[in-house]
């Protein structure tokens, strides 16, 4: 049986539909990523799964417990780390951890082995107040607090938002290690580059799940030819490419533009000729493999599926 089963869950705040008819299954032991921009409904879905919000429609179970009916039992079994730092800033590292251990009816000593690896990095600062920790350290402490009661499923809502690149990488390494010990983990993130570190991902946009699969499989769905293009005048380049007859879409990705062309269309030489005609200089064009972000952009532009 799957660790998390979501069936046709919907939730709206007044007029605004935050989660629209979402169905998902997350297998036991999976590191599952929920990828989507801000406002996609990730946090709302998380809150429903950790029993903080009631769904308007549909049902969901986590480790076999209904999120509405069995909420009391479930709270003992899930670890939840909200997107915003939510520990007591005026208590020390150790006091925060001890507090959450006690609230769950356990002690730090009893479950120390679960957090040892992460907590050992925090140990030198254990008497420092949580509010005075760096962003990365705060995340580690929050993770420890979410793990201290030995949860069966871990929910991490945008754990790497606002954390520096090195800490982000470290954090994902930690998640992977936890996951290898069999902890089912659901992570949400707005960063596309983190999707590759998950076993499977679901793309979310405006409350809907657009696609669910392994990161590589999702990328392979992107069938159209893709080119990275660069020229001296980026602004004029994007204007001209978007007007070109062969263009399907064109977005900027760092210093390059990613250009998708209509299938059976043009070669890089033809694109180069088109740009030369438009008086561009220093032109660079190369065919590339699509990444997660390209796929996401393509998925976002698909017309919404009609029922």
């Amino acid at each position: 049986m799957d660790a998390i089963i979501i069936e046709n869950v919907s939730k709206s705040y007044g007029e605004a539909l935050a989660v629209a008819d979402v169905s998902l299954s997350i297998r036991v032991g999976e590191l599952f990523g929920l990828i989507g921009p801000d406002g996609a409904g990730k946090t709302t879905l998380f809150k429903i799964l950790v029993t903080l919000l009631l769904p308007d429609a549909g049902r969901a179970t986590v480790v076999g417990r209904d999120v509405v009916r069995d909420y009391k039992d479930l709270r003992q079994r899930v670890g939840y780390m909200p997107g915003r730092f939510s520990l007591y800033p005026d208590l020390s590292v150790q006091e925060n951890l001890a507090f959450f251990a006690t609230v769950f009816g356990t002690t730090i000593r009893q479950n120390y082995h679960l957090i040892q690896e992460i907590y050992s990095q925090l140990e030198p600062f254990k008497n420092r107040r949580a509010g005075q920790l760096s962003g990365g350290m705060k995340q580690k402490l929050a993770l420890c607090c979410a793990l201290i009661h030995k949860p069966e499923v871990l929910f991490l809502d945008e754990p790497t938002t606002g954390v520096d690149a090195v800490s982000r990488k470290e954090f994902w390494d930690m998640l992977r290690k936890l996951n290898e010990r069999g902890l089912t983990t659901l992570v949400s993130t707005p960063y596309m580059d983190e999707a590759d570190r998950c076993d499977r991902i679901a793309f979310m946009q405006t409350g809907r799940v657009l696609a669910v699969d392994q990161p590589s499989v999702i990328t392979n769905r992107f069938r159209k030819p893709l080119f990275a293009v660069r020229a001296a005048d980026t602004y004029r380049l994007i204007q001209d490419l978007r007007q070109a007859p062969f263009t399907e879409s064109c977005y900027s990705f760092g210093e390059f533009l990613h250009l998708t062309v209509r299938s059976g269309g043009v070669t890089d030489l033809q694109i180069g000729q088109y740009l030369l005609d438009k008086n561009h200089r220093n032109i660079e064009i190369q065919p590339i493999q699509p990444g997660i972000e390209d796929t996401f952009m393509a998925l976002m532009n698909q017309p919404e599926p009609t029922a």
Partner: protein
Amino acid sequence: MNRIRYMVEKEIRQLRRNPVLLRIMLVAPIMQLILLSYAANYEVKNLNIAVVDGDHTTYSQRLVGKFRYLTNFNMTGYLPNDKQARQTLLAGNADLVLVIPPHFERDLEKEGRAAVQLLLNAIDGSKAGIANGYATVIIRDFNADILAETRTVTPGAVQKLDVQNQYWYNPRLEYKTFMVPGVLFELLLLVGGLVSALNLVREKEIGTMEQLNVTPIRKHEFILGKSIPFVLIGVVLFTVGLLLGRFLFQIPMEGSIVLMYLFALLFLILCVGLGLLISTMAENQQQALFVAFFLLVLFILLSGLFAATENMPDWAQWLNAVNPLKYIIEVGRNVMLKGSTFADVSGQFFTLAGMAVGLLVLASWRYRKTV
């Protein structure tokens, strides 16, 4: 049980980490107690009085003389006419003007009656009322004097009714004695209601409330863990206030001190219940502060701390039926000054207990709804 104990420990630890708040919570109320008790004094001294004497006779001089030798009045001088009198009042140079009309003495002797006029600056209504009271007594006194003189022909023929007042339970009409028991409970409302509401809303603001909601902590554990520290602080504050009242202000303590503590505890639970209810309605500390402040001011002004509730209009008295501060101040004054026993204040006890239970039930119900 363990969880509640740890919640309380955590709360006290957090309070100790915030020395500024702790100091404000303990020192500010005590300051308020001292200041309010000394400053809130209805005795009116140094009333500026001006006189328009249109008669200039012995009688008019004697009447003015009566005002001159009282400490409550401060004679500013004579004014030539009514117009000047009005200007003096307008300029704020006199609180009241005594106008003695021409032929004052002649009328008194010939017709046995005469009129004088008092012009009062009633910008401050209560001050004007008291000034009027003082002046009326002086004029009546003058009246009695001349009445006695004109009829000295037959000594002893004048029947004089001499009324002597005795002020029970506060023989010297000390305002401090009256204020301290009231202010003491007003302070508990401040700490128990306002500070606890802010504290709870802070958990909402920093997100720890949400974090706690996904833990198996029970509602009553959370609520008790949050309330106990504030009840404790309230009891400490109450003790300090009582000691100050007894030794600094020399307030009598006629009734049972145990009874006072029983009521203080009940009232604190009620206040925390109110704080809790406010916190379930507010999303941030500003909102909580405004709601709490609105209620506090209303409770305090209507409570009878500064003005007798019996003189308030009917609607205010109806409102006062749900004003916990009104009941507890009645209890405080009656127990401390009069020595009332539990039987005497059992009505207030059950009313307050009912309110406390009602607030706590309402707060827990609202608390669940917000989760």
